């Protein structure tokens, strides 16, 4: 039986070493561009705001610019007559910082927990997952309130509680992704070569679950921003007299009829930020799903 030479199915042209990365594919989706733009604008405001504010308005966040709730000046004054625009420009930094820290804590802890449970399997898996169920039976906000009730509204507590309550949710997603990957033969091949478990986790499994992890990162960031801003809005997050978007909304909503800017500016900023990060997360999800469908075809 000799194989007759036929026009060989030409192997695909030499594609670049790395195929379009997750981000490049995600970038092709329209919502990624919109999302990135929105997020960028708000992040710039949050980071540059504190220096830009006094330069632009000539007021600091605490001095008195005029009579309370007066719409004069660019964005008018708040309940104590402080300049709304300056406080708005300075109001994003802590929110952004706490959100990013909480997300990082949640993702790292969650990914580790998820991978160990997913790859470990058996008793370890069911033990971790049962523990997870207990943590998941609380809305994140309620656990945060419980902690604040006992310790009091502290900055570090916000980051810790929101971060820790992210972990079980991220763990569940990571575990699902890990279990899907663990079924592949290249994992069993690595086991056959007695590659240490730690290396299998980091070298073989982690690179293959970056898709779902990125999506999870985008989602957790969106939720972190939402929860921290909500806690400040409830008066239990960042405390007065600090300038913070969530707090400003609560302080100024009494004079909504006459001086809406104290509420509208922070509301628009938080909305833009959460929508922005969510759009980016969604485009990452479509990219990750897209790539996976391709691989399976």
């Amino acid at each position, binding site marked *: 039986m000799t194989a007759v030479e036929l026009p060989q199915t030409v192997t695909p042209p030499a594609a670049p070493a790395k195929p379009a990365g997750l981000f490049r594919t995600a970038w092709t989706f329209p*919502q990624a561009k919109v999302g990135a733009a929105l997020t960028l604008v708000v992040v710039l405001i949050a980071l540059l705001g504190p220096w830009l504010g006094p330069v632009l308005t000539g007021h600091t966040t605490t001095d008195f610019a005029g009579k309370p709730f007066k719409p004069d000046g660019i964005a008018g004054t708040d309940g104590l007559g402080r300049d709304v625009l300056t406080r708005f420009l300075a109001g994003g930094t802590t929110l952004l910082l706490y959100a990013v820290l909480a997300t990082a804590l949640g993702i790292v802890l969650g990914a580790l927990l998820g991978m160990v449970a997913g790859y470990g399997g058996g008793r370890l898996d069911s033990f971790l997952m*049962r523990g997870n*169920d*207990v*943590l998941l*039976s*609380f*809305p*994140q*906000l*309620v*656990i945060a*309130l*419980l*902690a*604040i*009730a*006992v*310790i*009091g509204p502290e900055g570090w507590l916000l980051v810790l509680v929101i971060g820790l309550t992210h972990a079980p949710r991220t763990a569940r997603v990571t575990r699902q992704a890990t279990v899907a990957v663990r079924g592949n033969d290249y994992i069993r091949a690595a086991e056959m070569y007695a590659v240490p478990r730690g290396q299998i986790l980091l070298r073989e499994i982690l690179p293959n679950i970056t898709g779902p992890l990125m999506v999870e990162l985008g989602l957790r960031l*969106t939720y972190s*921003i*939402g*929860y921290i*801003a*909500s806690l400040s*809005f*409830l*008066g*239990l997050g960042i405390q007065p007299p600090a300038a913070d978007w*969530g707090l400003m*909304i609560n302080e100024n*909503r009494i004079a*909504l*009829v006459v001086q*809406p800017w104290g*509420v*509208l500016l922070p*509301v628009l900023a*938080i*909305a833009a930020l*959460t*929508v922005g*990060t*969510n*759009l980016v997360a*969604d485009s990452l999800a479509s990219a990750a799903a897209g790539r996976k469908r391709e691989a399976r075809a």
Partner: protein
Amino acid sequence: MTRLILRRLLVSLAVLWLVSLLVFVATLLLPGDPARAILGQQATPERIAALQHQLHLDLPVWQRYLDWLGGLLTGDLGTSTSTQGPVTALLGDRISASLALLILAAVLATPLGIGLGTWSAIRRDRVTDQVISGISLVIAALPEFVIGVALVVLLSTTVFKIFPSVTLTTPGEPVWSQPAQLVLPVATLVLVVTPYITRMMRATMNEVLDSGYVEMARLKGMPERLVLTRHALPHAVGPVAQVVALQLAWLAGGVVVVEFLFRYPGIGQALIDAVSKRDVAVVQAITLLIAAVYIVVNLLADVVGILANPKLRTEAGR
């Protein structure tokens, strides 16, 4: 199948017990002595001792837990340090008020979400689908209070002045005696939950519509309407029930912010007051209540999931 459901029930009970343990321990482990935190400036030694006694802080830990758990089961949720009265009195009709909000939101959001999701799945990749998906993607990202404030600005204080943005109840009368007050809180909750149900329904329906048996049904010449009702929809019930349950449970958390925003006299507002007054007994009770709602709703979703799946339904007692 009944054994499957029984086992799921046991798991829920175990989780609920673990949750109660977690709530109790959380308040112990965390640093800071509640009595001193409450008394603050005026913490003279004898006042602390008196308050500690009142909060049973002087008993050994496990005994306090058993007392607390015992109280829980018999409906005595301990005494609130701020009102000196029993917690149950404080919660009383607030629970029915919050339940009313939850049920109204669920009754509106679920069919709306499922309808929009199915409609955009059927119209896949056409204008309606893109519009619905786009909007639900944007709204899903917004935190509850942003949506709430937007509604207040739109419908209550600035653009239109139609609905009250504050709930005022004459005591003794249920909240829904003045329905105009419920419109904005319920609208906010519906807007918070519907996007998730819509997106999940759309994803499930897309998956079902791409399935082999739907293609087979079409190739058998069945009209599209029959294909949808007999083959496609039954399969979407299981997963969607899960999401709807998850969202309703999530509502239990979201209600806290909405009640604060609209001054709605429910357990959410009571929780915020209790937290700002550091009234730990009330916080424990409400946290546990919300967690219980969370677990029960998840249990119901799983049961619906099992019933909707014929394989599990037919396996007697596996």
